[in-house]
């Protein structure tokens, strides 16, 4: 037992000082109070006005006391639950916990058989969910694409319907509007048993995306109101581009993006005090050559880490981004960009890091990139776990016992610890040259492809209730009818 002895758990990473964070915080409040946002939703403007915001036509300014109050209401910690009750698949959001998962909306997909790039279709959704369910370092599910072979208004519904039965890990849903939101919610409630049961153990989180700069669009707010009324944990995340739709400097884009998020926060807390609310998004730079958003840029990691620190400073969990690449192939570039951003996310402690598996600047989803990043995340987690210092790990007595010229392989101490102290690679190869040569000279890509194909051939996610399957059929049938 020690007195006056501080222990570091895990690795500590700190980019911004308290004073700098306070400056950024003030910059956000200033933007909300003095510039305001364009709020394109009548009911949302009414809610804001009643809560104390200043409404002038479409422009809404939020006084800082109201923002602070809304921040105070939102929880820093909460849990997303596995639909089958498997505690290993529960996702507890809280300080120091960094989780990872794929993202939505890529128009293209790397075919799991041919490895060719082609449009993403509804049959890809269950595949992605199965891979997510099986990978040990992926914690939540998203479709990794936008289905192209159904009516556009039904895409999100088909995506949720394809994911929900094929993984028991929590899902981040990105509906387009109130109608597919209702269908998605119906499915989740059916599995939970009732709305009340769902509220106690929510199994999905709901994503909305306002527009940069400083526009709260009708769609984003209509969806926010839907989710808030039903107590569905909410992500409100813009995708600003530094130098294009946001300031060119990291501090500037962080402030603007946070203002965009906290406008949504204010509405959400007014409707449902205490609603779990996650801020964040995909903040990156505009490549000044191609005008594209650079998903593999170091600035993405830098800005997201800064935003993570601001989010935590303000008491909110963070929707982070990582594991993406601008490369079109599963190659060295994809590994550099993906791994470094995963590692940085792990370091910064962003609560939910999404978009793992995005390639081709988010134009193509790849379960191979996802599986390779699962390895990188495991690797990163080993490092960020840090070094434990105690009587046992100091091993002074073991050192003494083994003495000069001895060895440690036989020691009980070694046997006791090596399985937890040493990370074991699933994909990285450490065999000697001759063995590797004899086993076919496999590359990282070969082994990643084999792992994915193996998961798809053998992994069995836990099933949903038959009643829920019936609800899914019903919801899809009704939705198809409505668009006809």
């Amino acid at each position, binding site marked *: 037992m020690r007195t006056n002895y501080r222990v570091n758990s895990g690795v500590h990473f700190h980019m911004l000082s308290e004073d700098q964070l306070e400056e950024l915080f003030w910059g956000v409040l200033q933007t909300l109070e003095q510039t305001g946002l364009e709020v394109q939703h009548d009911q949302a403007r009414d809610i804001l006005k009643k809560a104390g915001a200043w409404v002038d036509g479409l422009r809404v300014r939020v006084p800082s006391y109201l923002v602070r109050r809304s921040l105070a209401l939102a929880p820093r910690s909460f849990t997303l639950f596995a639909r089958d009750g498997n505690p290993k698949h529960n996702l507890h959001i809280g300080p120091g916990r960094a989780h990872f998962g794929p993202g939505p*909306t*890529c*128009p293209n997909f790397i075919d799991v058989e041919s490895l060719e790039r082609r*449009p993403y279709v509804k049959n890809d959704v269950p595949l992605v969910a199965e891979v997510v369910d099986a990978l040990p370092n992926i914690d939540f599910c998203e479709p990794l694409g*936008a289905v192209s072979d159904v009516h*556009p208004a039904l895409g999100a519904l088909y995506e949720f319907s394809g994911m929900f039965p094929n993984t028991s890990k929590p899902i981040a849903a990105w509906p*387009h509007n109130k109608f597919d939101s209702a269908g998605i919610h119906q499915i989740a409630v059916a599995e939970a048993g009732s709305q009340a049961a769902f509220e106690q153990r929510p199994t999905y989180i709901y994503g909305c995306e306002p*527009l940069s700069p400083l*526009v709260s*669009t009708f769609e984003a707010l209509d969806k926010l109101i839907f989710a808030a009324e039903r107590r569905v944990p909410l992500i409100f995340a813009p995708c600003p581009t530094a*130098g*294009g*739709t946001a300031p060119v400097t990291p501090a500037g884009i962080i402030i603007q993006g946070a203002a965009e998020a906290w406008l949504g926060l204010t509405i959400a807390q007014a409707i449902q005090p205490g609603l779990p609310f996650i801020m964040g998004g995909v903040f990156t730079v*505009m490549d*000044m*050559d*191609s*005008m*594209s*958003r650079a998903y593999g840029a170091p600035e993405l990691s830098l800005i997201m880490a800064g935003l993570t620190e601001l989010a935590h400073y303000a008491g909110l969990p963070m929707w982070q981004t990582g594991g993406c690449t601008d490369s079109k192939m599963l190659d060295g570039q994809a590994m550099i960009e993906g791994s470094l951003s995963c590692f940085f996310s792990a370091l910064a402690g962003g609560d939910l890091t999404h978009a793992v598996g995005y390639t081709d600047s988010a*134009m193509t989803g790849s379960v191979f990139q996802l599986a390779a990043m699962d390895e990188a995340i495991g690797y990163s987690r080993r490092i960020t776990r840090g070094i434990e210092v105690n009587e046992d790990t100091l091993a002074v007595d073991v050192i003494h016992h083994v003495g000069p010229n001895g060895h440690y392989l036989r020691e009980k101490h070694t046997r006791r610890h090596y399985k937890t102290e040493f990370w074991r690679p699933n994909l990285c190869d450490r065999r000697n040259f001759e063995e590797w040569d004899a086993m076919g000279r496999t590359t990282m890509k070969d082994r990643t492809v084999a792992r994915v194909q193996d998961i798809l051939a053998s992994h069995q996610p836990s099933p949903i209730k038959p009643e829920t399957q019936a609800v899914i059929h019903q919801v899809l049938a009704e939705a198809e009818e409505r668009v006809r």
Partner: protein
Amino acid sequence: MSTLYEELFTAILEGNNEITPRLVQKGLDEGWVPKDILDHGLVVGMNEVGARFKAGDMYVPEVLMSAEAMQAGLKILRPLLVSSGAQLIGKIVLGTVKGDLHDIGKNLVGMMCEGAGFEVIDLGFNVEPERFVEAIKQHQPQIVGMSALLTTTMRAMAHTIKAIEEAGLRDKVKIMVGGASVDAEFSRRIGADGYGSNAPAGVDLAKRFVGAV
């Protein structure tokens, strides 16, 4: 090239939106023909901007400044070009498709097409298929350009092409598409005539469509 044209060339390349209109006015005061000032001053300057961008010697923020300088000069010339019945190299209707509010790229395409000598009718953003059809009927452009940034609004491009087909106007126009979420493959699939990966590429495509290359 005369000194006026050289000065205009430099002003455009430097993106100077104060000197450019002053030089244009100076040219007019000295009796130069508006169409000549456009073709030999502004257009030549913007062509060079496009070439340097392609070579990686200029970047988008600079291209934008040059386009705005050119616009400042064109503002003075436009009414004179119209009243003198000058023939521009073509007419383009541009818009960001329904559901999408992003327009920086489209605006740049518009400015650079004007800089190349086109007449540009910009319908703005969140443009419904019907408005594109109406604009084709009203303005009879050679080219229709559609832009979309979001993967969720790309489909509006297909809907717009369908609407143009149903109005019996598809063979009257060349359709080009662009935007961060669009690629050549998508453009082929929806039946567009071409795709531009950036604004200067869009301008080149437009020029090829009217045979001005």
